[in-house]
C-alpha cells in the first residue's frame, strides 16, 4: 500500500507518541526470556529476543477473562461485563505470531462471535517486525511464509541497520500511520532491495523443514496407526506445548465466587489433560495419552485443514523449544510423511 522509512533513532520518539493514545503491547525482558507486556516507554522493549515465551494470542485471547458477573446461589442474577474500547497496538510481532489471528479468526468469529476476541481484534493494530536471525527451531517457511512476511500484519517493520523499512499493508494500518506522518519518509528502491536481501538472508537461516505436502489427506487414513503409541510414549502430559502454542485455543469456564459476588471466568485449558474430556459419568473418550497426543496432532494438521482450510500451526517452534521431553512436532509430521499408511 505504502512503503516508508523511519530512522532507527526516531523509533523511540514514534513509539512513545503511539503509547500516549494506545495501549501498546511489546516484548519485555523478564529474567531470561521475554514476554508481551503493556509498555509505558519505548526503553522497556526487548529487541534482543527471538520470540516472546508466550505467543501474542494472549493479547486478544486472554489467559483469564471474566465473561460475566453474577450473584451466586439459587436466587442468582447476572450482570453483563463491559467491554473496553481502548485502542490496542501489538508492536514487534513476528510472522508466526501474527499469523495466529488468521488461524484463530474462523474459530472466534465463526457462527457465534466471541465478543471479547472480536472487540480486541477490531480495535488492535498489528505492527510486525521481520525476523532477521531466526531461531534454530523456526520453520515458518514450511507453510510458504517468510520471516519477513507482511501478509498477517497492518504494518511491517524491517530493521535495515540504521533505519527501519515501514511497509503499510492494510487500510487500517494506513489510517493509523497517517497520524504520525512526521516520523517517516518515503522508501527508496534501495530500501526495498535491502529488505529483500535481509529477507533472503533470514530465510537461509531457517534450517528445519516440515514436509507438509499431502499430510492432511494422509492423516485421514492414519487414525489407527501405531505411530501414535510411539509418539505418546515420551509425553508426560504437562501441556506446555499447548500453552506456548500460538494456535491452541481451548478453554475452560469456571465460577469464581464469594458468598455475595461471583464471576464466570474463562481460562486457557489444555487437551493433554485427561480431565479435559472426562464426563461426569466417568466415561472418558480420550482416556490414554495416545488418544490425546493423536487428537492434538490431528486437530492442527487434519481437522483445521478440513474445517477452515488452513493448517493449525505457524512454525514458531515453541512447542519444540519448551517440551521437557524433547518431543518434536517436525519429526512427528515428517515421520508420518514417510510412514506406510
Amino acid at each position, binding site marked *: 500500500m505504502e512503503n516508508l522509512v523511519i530512522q532507527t533513532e526516531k523509533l523511540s520518539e514514534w513509539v512513545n507518541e503511539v503509547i500516549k493514545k494506545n495501549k501498546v503491547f511489546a516484548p519485555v525482558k523478564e529474567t531470561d526470556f521475554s514476554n508481551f507486556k503493556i509498555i509505558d516507554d519505548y526503553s522497556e522493549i526487548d529487541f534482543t529476543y527471538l520470540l516472546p515465551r508466550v505467543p501474542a494470542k494472549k493479547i486478544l485471547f486472554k489467559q483469564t477473562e471474566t465473561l460475566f458477573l453474577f450473584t451466586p446461589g439459587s436466587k442468582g442474577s447476572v450482570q453483563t*461485563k463491559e467491554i473496553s474500547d481502548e485502542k490496542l497496538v501489538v508492536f514487534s510481532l513476528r510472522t508466526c505470531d501474527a499469523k495466529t489471528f488468521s488461524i484463530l479468526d474462523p474459530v472466534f468469529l465463526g457462527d457465534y462471535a*466471541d465478543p471479547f476476541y472480536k472487540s480486541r481484534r477490531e480495535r488492535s493494530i498489528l505492527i510486525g517486525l521481520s525476523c532477521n536471525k531466526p531461531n534454530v527451531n523456526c520453520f515458518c517457511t514450511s507453510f510458504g511464509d517468510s520471516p519477513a512476511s507482511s501478509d498477517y500484519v497492518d504494518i511491517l517493520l524491517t530493521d535495515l541497520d540504521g533505519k527501519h523499512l515501514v511497509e503499510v499493508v492494510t487500510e487500517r494500518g494506513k489510517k493509523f500511520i497517517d497520524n504520525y506522518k512526521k516520523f517517516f519518509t518515503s522508501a527508496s528502491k534501495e530500501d526495498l532491495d535491502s529488505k529483500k536481501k535481509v529477507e533472503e538472508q533470514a530465510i537461509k537461516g531457517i534450517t528445519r523443514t516440515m514436509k507438509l505436502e499431502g499430510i492432511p489427506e494422509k492423516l485421514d487414513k492414519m487414525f489407527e496407526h501405531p505411530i501414535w503409541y510411539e509418539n505418546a510414549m515420551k509425553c508426560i502430559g504437562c501441556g506446555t506445548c499447548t500453552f506456548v502454542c500460538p494456535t491452541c485455543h481451548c*478453554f475452560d469456564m469456571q465460577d469464581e465466587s464469594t458468598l455475595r459476588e461471583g464471576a464466570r471466568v474463562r481460562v486457557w*485449558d489444555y487437551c493433554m489433560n485427561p480431565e479435559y474430556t472426562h*464426563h461426569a459419568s466417568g466415561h472418558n473418550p*480420550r482416556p490414554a495419552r495416545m488418544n490425546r497426543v493423536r*487428537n492434538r496432532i490431528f486437530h492442527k494438521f487434519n481437522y483445521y485443514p*478440513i474445517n477452515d482450510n488452513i493448517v493449525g500451526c505457524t512454525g514458531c517452534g515453541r512447542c519444540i523449544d519448551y517440551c521437557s521431553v524433547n518431543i518434536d512436532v517436525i519429526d512427528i509430521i515428517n515421520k508420518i510423511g514417510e510412514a506406510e499408511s
Partner: protein
Amino acid sequence: MTKNSEGTFEIQNPYQPLLAKVVKITNEVDGARAIKTYKLVFQDEETKINFSFIPGQFVMVSVFGKGESTFAISSSSTQKDYIEISVMKHGKNTAALHELEEGDIVGVRGPYGNTFDVKGWEGKNIILIGGGIGQAPLRSVLNYILDNRDKYGTLDAIYGARTSSDICYKEEFAELEKRDDVNVHLSIDVEEEGWNNYVGFVPNNLMEVKPSSENAIAITCGPPIMIEYVIQNLLKLGFTEKQIYTTLEMRMKCGIGICGRCNIGNLYVCKDGPVFSYEQLKGLQGDM
C-alpha cells in the same frame, strides 16, 4: 438479548445465560443415580415468548457459583412458555441442581446444536429406543409426535433401565401404556418380583419387539455401549444407515464450537451434533 434491525434476537454475549425460574421439580428416580426433572420458565417476558427450539437441541444450565452443564431439552417444542430438563445427579453442578427448590433461579443458554428432522419424518413410523437418562432427548421427540399424532405413522417407545426404580418418567410411561396410538415396551436388566414386562438389556428387547424397517426411522439414546448394540441390532432388522439416528453427549464448556473439547474427529458435538445419523457416525473417525 437485544433486538437487531430485522427484529430478530441477537445475543450479545453468548456466554452470558438468561435467567429462568424453576417452577416445578419432579422426582423421577431416587437413590444413588437420582434423576429430577425441572420445568423452567424464562424470567424475561420477551425471551419467554420468543424462545423456540426443535427436538434434539440442548441448553447449558447454570447454578451460579457452582458451574454450568449441558442438558438435552426433554420437553416438546409444542409446549410453549417453558422448557424441561432431566438431570441425573453426577457432578458438582448437577448436585447443586438437585439441591434446588421450586421458585429458585438458574441460568440458561441456548438452544444449541442441530435437531432431529421431525418435519422431514412426517408420514413415517417412528421407533424410539432409550436407556436410562438417555430417554430425555427422546421424550422431546415422543411428546412432539403425540402433539402432532396424525402426521406420523406408528409410534413405538422401547425403553429400559437397570431396575424398576431406575425407570425415568415412570408415571408418563404408565399413562402412555393406556393409549392405543403408542406402543410402549419397557424392560429392566435383572428380574424383579412383580415385573411383568421384558427382563434383559434394551438391544435384546429391541429384537423381541422386532419393529419393521419399512418406512421407519429409529432413534436411540442411552449409554454408549447400549447405542452400539442397538445399532447393530437395527441393522440386523433391516434398517439402513439412513434410518438410524442417535444423539451423543460430550463434555462441553462453551456449547458454541469454540472451547474445543467436544470434538469427534473434525466435528464438534455441540454445533455439528448432537444428533447424528448412523450414516454420518460410521464415517466418523474419532475418540468417542
